[in-house]
């Protein structure tokens, strides 16, 4: 697939390569410090009901991020 989708659209267990992060500088920096940046392959572990947090894995790091943040991380699967 060549059209980037957000981490929300990805199913649990699927992975993708980060294409863009459509957030502000603060958010990009925060994600960057945990190793989530353009070109990195990340896996979606789980999502919660009612727009709850999304758990993703990047390398050996597992991190829970909010729904809004997840919707701004665009990946190529």
């Amino acid at each position: 697939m060549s059209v980037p989708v957000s981490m929300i659209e990805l199913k649990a267990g699927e992975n993708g390569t980060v294409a863009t992060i459509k957030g502000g500088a603060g958010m990009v920096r925060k994600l960057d410090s945990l190793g989530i940046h353009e070109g990195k392959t990340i896996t979606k572990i789980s999502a919660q009901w009612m727009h709850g947090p999304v758990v993703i894995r990047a390398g050996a790091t597992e991190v829970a991020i909010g729904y809004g943040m997840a919707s701004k991380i665009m990946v190529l699967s």
Partner: protein
Amino acid sequence: MKILLMGNPNVGKSALFNRLTGADVIISNYPGTTVEFSRGSIKTGGECVEIIDVPGTYTLEPTCRAEEIAVRILENEPDAIIVNVLTSINLERSLFLTMQLIEKKRPMLVVLNMWDEAAHAGISIDREMLEKMLGCPCMPTCAISGQGIKNMVEKLGDARIPEFFSTPAGRWDDIGRIIDRVQTVRHRHHTFRERLADASVYPFPGLVVAAIILLASLAAIRWIGEGLINAVLEPFFENCWKPVAMHLSTAMGGQGFVHDLIVGKLIDGQIDYGQSFGLLTTGLFVPFGAVLPYVFAFYTVLSILEDIGYLPRLAVISDVVMHRLGLHGLAIMPMLLGFGCNVPGILSTRILETRKERFIAATLTAIAVPCMSLQAMVAGLAGRHGVHGLLLVFGTLAVVWVVLGLVLRRLVKGESPEIFVEIPPYRLPDLWCLIKKIAIRIKWFLKEAIPFVLLGVFIADLLYMLGVIELTGRILSPVTTRIMGLPADAAGAIVVGFLRKDVAVGMLAPLDLTLKQLVIASVVLSMFFPCIATFSVMVKELGMKDMAKSAAIMVVSSIVVAGILNLLLPTG
């Protein structure tokens, strides 16, 4: 010489600090355990080295209060050597902060902690190559078992400014090059623990797991607390201590001002720990006989949950609810800690990013999260009427917690960012660490509680004897009697509640309250105003102005809630 222990959250800095200095700093398996820094010192080669345990941070561009503290310490200690603690199980991510620290051009030593766990996970790191590439000593350690610590200390003198050159834009590329050369990962299958880890962040079975763990925790706390009271403390106070106190009472003439202060009033010629209110009777029974067993039970259960690494997962599961209260899932940590004692609970609000969140979390904790001291006394008093009395008290507080959160979310200005938390792997708790942590917390409780309990009992006695209680009772009676439906004497408990909540609940014992009055009084005591220890930590964390706002919310909401309960609950 001075050294700063710096590194990502949850890599074992505090464990290393304890190992190095023999100090007692709480360690857990979740990011953000350390929100305040500790100092200690060691002697090596005849030289005294001061060590500072810095709160964990992912970056030198801070995103929360604890990280701000970390960066500030780094700036305030320009001559200190940086001991950068990395986790070997996640070298790649750990190196990001290393790159930023390298840019500071200061003498550094890199510690590869959790070396053993990485080996188990099939990760091998070429330490010498890493040392060569970075240009500063890299020492493997296992802070929990103590392996490698001695070698690391010996190398402190070799710390030097790394030769590695990195630019902010190229950090991850540089890290990628390092990882390619120093790390090899053996492919392996998912372990049972990893499957369990994933399962607990799915909505299903995550919610079921959360419900089971919380119910089991409650049951365990009650079982341990009650068990200790029935098997050890109650027999001790009744059969061993009471005869001693009775002898003392006889020797002191059985009555009089000093007698009543020390031994307390005799009830039907006998000491009654609930009603006598002497320093050596009620003053000792409250902290040791009633509260300590529950504090011990609570911290045992909490410490196990912390060390396994369950709490960040609970944060994920509870995020949806917390979000409605203007918080995010991570705010479950201050709340849980608050159930033990509000002071550490409110301190840990530092893991939250904005002023709005910290205000809501601290206010909700102080109002609707009853500390173990209060809970234990309420359990002793209202529990006599059966479980429904307790359910009414805690159920009311739970409703207050939700409703107040919903309101504050709209009223308090500012932002409520989304959850952002690293989820650590599940770990089997180290028994020795667990015992040590529970011991630290018990010691801390005793140090904080005993003086204030004795002072509380002393002041309660004085106020009674001087007639102040009666006076305040009369002054406050429009509120306490009319709105809350409590006897005028209960006002004394509210006054003493400022010193210690457990003593305050204890003051209700002689009043012969009905269950309804007991429920209302317990709710008011939890909500009305924090005890002095909590009050001062709130002033420190929120500032005087926000604390005043928070206090206003407490007073008003407690009166409203007590009024509603007084109207709704059936008499009797």
